[in-house]
């Protein structure tokens, strides 16, 4: 899939949820947004809270459609993209 043309569902967990002030939202990024990394670049410009959430990229993990992903992972219309810190279960 080339560009995101339909809304994406974005989920935030743990301190990414706290910093963005959002648990879940539906967004339509600009045309040409084709990867998770490009989505982050757009999201972090939305507000100081978003900028803070994504400030240290090394501590941000992601999943696309409930599968672990990385900044190079391609995204398409209707995808569910989740952002979270490294997991700490067990």
């Amino acid at each position: 899939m080339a560009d995101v043309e339909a809304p994406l569902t974005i989920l935030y967990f743990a301190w990414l949820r706290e910093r963005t002030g959002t648990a879940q939202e539906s967004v339509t990024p600009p045309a040409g947004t084709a990867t998770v990394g490009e989505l982050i670049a757009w999201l972090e410009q939305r507000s100081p809270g978003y900028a803070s959430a994504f400030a240290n990229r090394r501590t941000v993990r992601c999943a696309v459609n409930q599968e672990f992903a990385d900044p190079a992972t391609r995204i398409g219309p209707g995808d569910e993209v989740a952002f979270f810190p490294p997991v700490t279960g067990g």
Partner: protein
Amino acid sequence: MSRISVQTENFDIGAEFAALTAGRTDIGGIGCFVGAVRGPVTAMTLEHYPAMTERAIACIVEEAERRWSLLACTVIHRYGRLCAGENIVLVLTAAPHRQPALDATAFLIDWLKTKAPFWKKEESASGGESWVEARLEDDAAAARW
């Protein structure tokens, strides 16, 4: 044969043990790991990614089943607010012999810690709250398998 549950309520280790082994005579060894909330934190809240958690745990269990000759396996992981001393996670594995049971149990908890979408927020006696940071030792423990 595996049982996976992500739940808020506590688990009954004896009942899970009995369910794992009921009617079987082919099990020679059973591995068991229980993770608990350890002081001095007074409590912690576990958050997870509901749509992904069970699938992620199932992938980890499938990997264990590929690597060892497991006869049965149980993974129960709790979420929500848990106080010091409460159980967090249960791993049970049954195999024909002790080594696969013990190794698969260690593998499962190591991978659960680094590959299942849970996040812990700790509460201290002073009333402070902080997110638990992932530890390099946990990554190293997961990478040794």
